[in-house]
């Protein structure tokens, strides 16, 4: 039987070598399938890596058109229409015990949410959200700090401020030395959305960058508890990164 075995082994191995798997296509399909099934079965636990990535941006920033817009960008073609950029390696904004069975990516606000995205050894990105406002003041600034250890070729920062009494935008600004970043503010029905985007073709070297969402509000201060931010980035080496957090 050795002869048969050798022959068969040689034949099936040669045949196996004929096929060249497309790693990226497979990865994209996994992402798409998981997202689709998440939408289809809201009540089943959502995949954690989706919660930590684009789906969380969708959930936190209001879903639908906005999130698509945020993730796809307004420039250039959308890379993967149904499933934008999702990184399996993104850390989660919400606290979950590693290995806990089923964290859910629900739209509900976690009871305790850190303002800082968990730094992880395997991501070059770290973000933090803070509010700069005096107690009882009628104006304030929500600040998102993005620290990257790698050059970024794409960067979008979204800040969603939930409507509170007399909330009015004073515009967005940013400190990203040496790079061109545009900022826009969109009035959503229940929120103001500040969008900061690195200009196409531009890149951001490793460093710490700050984005400011400025506003006025009713006297007596403002509760930032329902605000959220999302960061969608791509390193120059091609890694997609998504982080979300709160203030």
């Amino acid at each position, binding site marked *: *039987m050795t*002869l*048969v*075995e050798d*022959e*068969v*082994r040689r*034949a*099936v*191995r*040669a*045949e*196996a070598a*004929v*096929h060249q*798997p*497309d*790693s990226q*296509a*497979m*990865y994209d*399909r*996994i992402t798409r*399938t*998981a997202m689709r*099934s998440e939408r289809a079965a809201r009540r089943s636990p959502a*995949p*954690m*890596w989706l919660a*930590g990535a684009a789906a969380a941006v969708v959930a936190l920033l209001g879903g639908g058109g906005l999130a698509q817009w945020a993730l796809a960008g307004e420039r250039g073609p959308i890379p993967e229409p149904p499933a934008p950029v999702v990184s*399996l*390696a*993104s*850390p989660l904004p919400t606290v979950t015990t*590693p*290995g806990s*069975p089923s964290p859910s990516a629900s739209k509900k606000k976690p009871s305790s949410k850190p303002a800082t995205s968990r730094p*992880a050894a*395997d991501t070059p990105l770290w973000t933090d959200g803070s509010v700069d406002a005096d107690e009882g003041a009628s104006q304030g600034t929500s600040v998102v700090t993005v620290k990257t250890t790698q050059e970024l070729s794409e960067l979008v920062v979204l800040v969603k401020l939930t409507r509170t009494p007399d909330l009015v935008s004073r515009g967005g600004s940013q400190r990203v030395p040496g790079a061109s970043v545009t900022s826009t503010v969109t009035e959503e029905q229940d929120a103001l959305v500040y969008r900061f985007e690195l200009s196409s073709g531009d890149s951001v070297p490793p460093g710490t960058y700050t984005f400011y969402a400025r506003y006025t509000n009713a006297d007596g201060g403002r509760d930032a508890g329902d605000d959220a931010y999302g960061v969608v980035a791509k390193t120059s080496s091609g890694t997609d990164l998504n982080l979300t957090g709160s203030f």
Partner: protein
Amino acid sequence: MREAAFRAYFEDQHDSFSRLAYLLTGDVSVADDLAADALTEVWRHWDRVVAAEHPAAYGRGIVTNLARQWVRRQQRERLRLLEPFRRAPESDIPAVLDVRSALRRLPHRRRACVVLRYAFDLSEREVAGILGISVGAVKSATSRGAKQLTGLLGGDTTLIDGWETAQ
């Protein structure tokens, strides 16, 4: 972290899963999709996968099942389409088949055993675990599958130069 662990699993296994799917289906156009779907299942059942004695085998089992389902669907579809033109099933088999076509002629279990044993060098025990059958069943299916395959490849009696001589 779970997603980092899954990512590592993906990196380790996706190539071999896709090649396995290819050998079991004979179709390059679906191999990546089937393997990706299997990996999605792996993700969904991650707790079970890491608890499994052989996490890779767990994934291979899913690939094998998905491939089998796909092949069945194809066969049903083909039967439905070809029904009006049906001929004697064995009459048009060429004397010599290429490896891909020959594998497709094997019954599922034989094909899976031959592929897992010879293309992926798994032990009989491992293959038994993946397919959920006994080691004895693996032995016999592998042996029959290998024989049938060489026969289909034209090596009925002369294995060495069977490729050339059989017409």
